[in-house]
């Protein structure tokens, strides 16, 4: 029983290792350079090292460009870095493509408009694009009337939003201010005014509180203070 166990272990011994019958301890010719030695036989056998020892391995050639250099500056990307790291980018795709009509912020897989699907299933191409003939155009003869509900969509909200912003920008550059911008500006102004009013109100309150406290203190220290003892009371 025991013998069987040992036999089972045997195949894993170094003798039958994939490296051959070599002991794993035996040093192999490594990449760090060869250790040249002269073995002298005779009455007094000795081993004399006759070449450079392994520390003399040639160091790797230092490349001019390493991670020690500021690669952002090296490739002239500092401007891009400051551009993207400084301001907080808007998450939506519509903020990147403000002129695009339709709802573009929803996932592309929902309406089968993902770019991935174009790569995975490329459209049929290579054919020459020719204008439609009259017969072909007949296929596009439509019935009068509105579209069914499910095909109608109104999505002018994101465009409006960005148009406003664009106008604001123009205004900054020196263009004539539009009505919309003036409206938004005034709204922001009123907001600020409200804030200021609130602040003033708060400050007034604090002032009043301070005055009251001062009065109390004065009353405490003064002899006329109702809470304090009069000399007559003291004596009694």
């Amino acid at each position, binding site marked *: 029983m025991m013998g069987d166990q040992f036999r089972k272990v045997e195949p894993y011994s170094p003798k039958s290792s994939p490296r051959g019958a070599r002991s794993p301890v035996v040093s192999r010719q490594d990449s760090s350079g060869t250790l040249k030695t002269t073995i002298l036989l005779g009455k007094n056998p000795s081993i004399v090292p006759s070449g450079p020892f392994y520390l003399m391995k040639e160091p790797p050639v230092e490349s001019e460009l390493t991670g*020690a250099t500021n690669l952002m500056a090296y490739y002239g990307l500092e401007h891009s870095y400051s551009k993207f790291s400084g301001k907080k980018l808007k998450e939506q795709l519509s903020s990147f493509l403000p002129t695009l009509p339709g709802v573009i912020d929803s996932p592309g897989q929902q309406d089968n408009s993902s770019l991935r699907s174009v790569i995975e299933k490329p459209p049929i191409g290579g054919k020459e694009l020719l204008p439609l003939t009259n017969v072909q155009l007949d296929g596009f003869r439509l019935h009068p009337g509105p579209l069914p509900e499910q095909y109608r969509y109104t999505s002018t909200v994101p465009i409006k939003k960005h148009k406003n912003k664009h106008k604001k920008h123009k205004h900054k550059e020196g263009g004539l201010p539009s009505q919309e911008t003036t409206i938004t500006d005034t709204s922001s102004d009123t907001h600020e005014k409200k804030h200021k009013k609130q602040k003033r109100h708060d400050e007034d309150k604090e002032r009043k509180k301070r005055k009251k406290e001062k009065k109390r203190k004065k009353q405490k220290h003064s002899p006329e203070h109702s809470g304090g003892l009069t000399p007559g009371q003291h004596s009694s």
Partner: protein
Amino acid sequence: MASSLENLETQLEMFIENVRQIHIIVSDFQPQSQSVLNQKLQSLVHGLQEVDKLKSQVQDVHVPLEVFDYIDQGRNPQLYTKDCIEKALAKNEQVKGKIDAYRKFKANMLLELSRTFPNELSKYRALRGDE
């Protein structure tokens, strides 16, 4: 390069605008707008031809596939650029830190070795030729 990209962008914008107009015509179709629709459809084909012509000018533009994931999720593709820049910077700093640490280690090692094995190290340096 920039001009070819701008050309393509303009063409695509025109194409999208054309499609948008077709959508408006079609959404409440009137019999008299059939000819306008036909015109628009022809200009759609023309737009595709124009985009196809510009294909050769943008052959050397490489777009990372990950950007498409951002776009497909309805996210701003500039966020991808931002993430890339931040990752590159972090990695750059990490590697710089490692290089600096190794440099210090080498200097300290040589110092200590010269203290403990002055003769051997002078030989070593002589062999190296960096004395």
